[in-house]
């Protein structure tokens, strides 16, 4: 408790310090508010937004897209990772293709997805999935291969079926890997949704930001970014919860021993 308090206090101090410097910098004319609007303006703008119904619609749309692409991306990536992690031949064959796809700048996929999936939710989610999927895949793939060979041998000797091995050995062993990928993925899912909206849509936070950008309204852009960050922190808290529940069996982190 005292430790948590200390953490919160330090964080608060950092945030406050940054905001103060920024605000003063703007007031003193050192920072150009055309590019970096003062925090006070940002807060005012967010407050303004929050009082409109449109904003909440935008937020809920983006949230839905984010959550869907997060879940779908993690699902597909993890499944793929497990499959390839367990079948070395398939892995060797398929991996180069996966790597190649991972190289495609997602911005370029935006228009293609619009062509394939239309302007609705699906194309947004598709873009998010392409970002999340690879992170989840590579980590799960490695995680599955990192299983302690002695533990694995022991379970196999107890005559575990393939699916039992998966459930009782591979997945628990890869949990930290998968969780770690979730951390990156949360951000990626948000990014995917927003970029897709930014490229073409009629609602959502990405649209809001694009609009602000179109009229050179830096305040709107930054306010949008702040809302997004709040988003990610909220989603990440859920991952934290999952982590606590899934990893009860672990010894306390090594450095505190």
């Amino acid at each position, binding site marked *: 408790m005292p430790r948590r308090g200390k953490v919160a206090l330090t964080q608060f101090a950092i945030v406050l310090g940054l905001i103060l410097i920024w605000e003063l910098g703007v007031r003193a004319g050192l920072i150009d508010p*055309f*590019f970096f609007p003062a925090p006070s303006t940002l807060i005012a703008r967010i407050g303004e937004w929050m009082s409109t119904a449109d904003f909440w619609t935008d937020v809920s749309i983006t949230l839905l897209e984010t959550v869907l692409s997060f879940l779908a991306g993690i699902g597909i990536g993890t499944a793929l990772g497990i499959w390839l992690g367990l079948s070395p031949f398939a892995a060797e064959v398929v991996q180069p293709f996966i790597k190649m796809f991972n190289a495609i700048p997602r911005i370029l996929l*935006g*228009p293609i997805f*619009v*062509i394939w999936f*239309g*302007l609705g939710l699906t194309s947004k989610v598709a873009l998010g999935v392409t970002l999340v999927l690879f992170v989840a895949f590579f980590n799960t793939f490695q995680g599955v291969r990192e299983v302690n060979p002695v533990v694995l041998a022991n379970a196999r000797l107890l005559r575990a079926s393939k699916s039992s091995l998966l459930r009782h050995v591979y997945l628990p062993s890869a949990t930290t890997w998968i969780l770690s990928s979730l951390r990156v993925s949360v951000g990626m899912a948000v990014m995917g949704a927003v970029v897709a909206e*930014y*490229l*073409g*849509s*009629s609602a959502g936070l990405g*649209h809001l930001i*694009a*609009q*602000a*950008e*179109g*009229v*050179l*309204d830096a305040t709107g852009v930054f306010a949008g970014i702040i809302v997004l960050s709040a988003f990610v922190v909220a989603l990440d808290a859920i991952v934290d919860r999952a982590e606590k529940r899934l990893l009860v069996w672990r010894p306390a982190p090594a450095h505190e021993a």
Partner: protein
Amino acid sequence: AEPEKTKLKIAVGSQILNYMPLELGVKLGAFKEEGVDVTVENFQAGGSKALQALIGGSVDGTVGFYDHTIQMQAQGKQISCVFLLNDIPGVLLGVRGDLADKVKTGAGLKGLKLGITAPGSSTDTMARYYIKKSGLGPRDVSIIAVGSGAPGMVALEARNIDALVYFDPIATLLARKKSATPLFDARTVEGSRQAFGGIYPTACLYLQQSFIDKNPEAVQRLVNALFKTHRWINTVSAEQLVDAMPPGYKTDNREVNIEIINASKALFSPTGQMDIDAAKVPLAVLGDFDPKIAAAKIDLIKTFTNRFAKRAAQQLK
């Protein structure tokens, strides 16, 4: 006099036909002749990025929409247009082929879905202005951003949207396929009048006022080069122009390219000079759309100067 600066960076927001003379000039060597070395930086994500680069000091000048000079004045930044590339926008607003019979005027757009490239972009502004001018309220038409280029075409053909605001080469492609019928075609002066009640200056070379003050000779050279390029454009045939155009502005198909040029040649202003009355149209359009601009007292005189273009016309007779 010698130019104060010889290495100059000029930004463009994506490679649309309106901005073509800049790169054409580079290709033809017009800038070299004037003793300045110009690099063109392309901002595919749009004009606002190119403008930001100018304000941030990453580039010396930007070829972008005249609108920006007004918007910047509202935000307390002095930028000024020194050479007007287009005095008409070159923009079209079309409805899907199958709706052409039902929708003949702007008022017919009521309840339909209209695609623009990006929220807040010039297509957005112009579309909203046109809707208003046609007697509709802002909520009567649902405006959807579809991105630039192919996705908009596809969205229209797939009936995701009912109408679209677009430029060439999309315009020519859509016309060939007969999948869209324009409600207005501002690639001509009449079309522009019909849509905006006057000619509508769009692409121009603008720079920071401070830069112009410090580097008048460099600016003059830039304007001279553009002036020469425009004069060249207006003397050659469409075929010659197409062959000379830089690759980023033409499609694979020469025929289509020629068709595009034939439809759009009127875009390129022969003088590069701004008419004060013409400048009032964008102000009206923007003011309608953005209350901040309406509120700000915009001094149009400060948004452009014909000084350089006039001198170019004299020098290069």
